């Protein structure tokens, strides 16, 4: 097959195209995956253990929310409520680490964190996530202005949680001057959720009650991350695709002499276009596959990089992967076939002479 021979006989050019496409596709994957991953981790943290979320009314970010945790006493008495717990989510310097996530939680939710060493924290104690623990070797750690004893270590599937510190709700309340950031309620039956949302909302004028599903959909921070990541990944995507198209176009332009010779030998435009089509298809598909494998490898490694404390995570959806595949091939074909088509309409001798110049 001529297409394969052309790729094989020009290894430098082939490697150049292959690398350009690989890097462009990887940039697209990594930028969009990391932003998707950030949203995914935070929303999973909320979704995992609750059907209903209670936050302070009129607060756009859970970091600033303050909900009276004593409201749980009334909620727990309601029919169809399975359990509830309060959480404080904050960020603070932890020991020599400039910033880390602090998760204060009710004692009934501590078991959510899988203990790998020691015990769950009592008052004045904290337990460290797997990632952050690699950077702290002492028995105590200073958080804010207070020193806490390290009671144990935990694991979590969530990168945010693994890079953070868990303490009990009261200690976190003292640290961040609030009762709780939000309360999560689990229900016995999904059918009871909407009625419970209304019932809980009637308990106080200062709270906002939503199903966790609708909260995640409407959460402002997610919308901001989603929109900004969409803009960044779209730009990366566009730049990547333009790069692919221009590399292909440069390569095709550098082969005008060859096309001229083929035309002089009586090869039709269709023959030239067909071979170039297969050449581009082979190149773009193999570069895409390589980029996909590399990206998946990098995404799998990211949560384990100590320096990132597990905060940078990525998730790559099948839809994104397919969309990028289709776009990559389309742009590569566009970049190669348009100049080839224009070239094929030029007089063969002019193509040969252009190729020589």
């Amino acid at each position, binding site marked *: 097959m001529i297409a394969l021979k052309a790729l094989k*006989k020009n290894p430098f050019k082939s490697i150049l195209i292959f690398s350009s496409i690989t890097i462009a596709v990887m940039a697209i994957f990594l930028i969009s995956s990391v932003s998707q991953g950030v949203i995914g981790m935070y929303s999973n943290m909320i979704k995992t253990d609750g059907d209903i979320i209670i936050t302070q009314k009129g607060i756009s970010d859970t970091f600033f929310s303050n909900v009276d945790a004593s409201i749980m006493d009334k909620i727990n008495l309601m029919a169809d409520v399975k359990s509830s717990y309060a959480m404080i989510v904050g960020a603070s310097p932890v020991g020599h680490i400039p910033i880390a996530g602090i998760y204060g939680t009710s004692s009934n939710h501590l078991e959510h964190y899988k203990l790998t060493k020691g015990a769950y924290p009592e008052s004045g104690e904290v337990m460290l996530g797997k990632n952050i623990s690699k950077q702290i070797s002492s028995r105590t750690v200073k958080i804010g202005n207070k020193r806490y004893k390290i009671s144990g270590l935990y694991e979590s599937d969530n990168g945010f949680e693994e890079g953070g510190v868990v303490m009990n709700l009261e200690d976190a309340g003292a640290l961040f001057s609030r009762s709780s950031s939000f309360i999560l309620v689990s229900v016995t039956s999904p059918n009871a959720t909407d009625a419970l949302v209304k019932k809980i909302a009637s308990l106080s004028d200062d709270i906002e009650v939503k199903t966790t599903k609708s909260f995640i959909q409407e959460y402002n921070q997610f919308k901001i991350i989603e929109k900004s990541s969409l803009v960044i990944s779209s730009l990366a995507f566009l730049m990547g695709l333009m790069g692919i198209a221009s590399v292909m176009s440069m390569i095709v332009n550098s082969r005008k002499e060859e096309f001229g*010779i083929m*035309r002089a030998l009586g090869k039709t435009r269709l023959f030239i276009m067909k071979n170039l089509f297969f050449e581009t298809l082979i190149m773009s598909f193999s570069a895409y596959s390589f980029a996909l494998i590399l990206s998946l490898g990098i995404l799998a490694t990211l949560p384990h990089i100590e320096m990132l404390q597990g905060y940078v995570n990525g998730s790559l959806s099948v839809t994104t992967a397919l969309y990028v595949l289709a776009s990559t091939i389309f742009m590569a074909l566009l970049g190669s076939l348009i100049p080839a088509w224009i070239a094929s309409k030029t007089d063969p*001798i002019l193509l040969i002479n252009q190729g020589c110049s």
Partner: protein
Amino acid sequence: MIKVSNVSHFYGEEQVLYDISFEIKDGEFIFLSGDSGSGKSTLLSILSTLLKPSGGELLLDNSPVEDIKNIDLFRQENIGFVFQFHYLINYLSVYENIALAALQSKKGNIEKLLQDLGISSLSSRYPNEISGGQRQRVALARALINEPKIIFADEPTGSLDSANSKIVYELLAKAVKNGTTVVVASHDMHVQDYATKTIRMVDGKI
């Protein structure tokens, strides 16, 4: 038969051919001579349908070239080319370069043709693995494979020594003996020894 009537050509604003008219009969060996820049390569490109003239008419077997429906196929079936720089495709072997030009029905003749030209041992080699003289013989094999009616050669010996030049001219003369029309554009006055007719070009005119 090739008939050229009032052909002129411009590259941008610059006119390179002026009102050229002549005829080439079947089986002739035409020597298109002239200095560099006299327009002989441009005229050869027009005659061989590789370049559309800016003005005038080219008739091939009494049909205007514009009326030929599939000019690519026409070229493949009727015309062979030999260029000064051989223009072999570097990623194809000697055999594949010839096969690329060959009509399906002529592919079986490649081995024999390579033998006739004394280059059968080069069959699997690539253009950058053979000498200039050998490349030009491969280019000649590529031009001959479809047993074309006409062969156009533009400075076919421009990059060859005299021994290899002689081989090329003798092969072209042999093709003429077999009924092929050959048109050679060259500075090399030795072509005259083989040509049946010489057309001299001066400043875009004959």
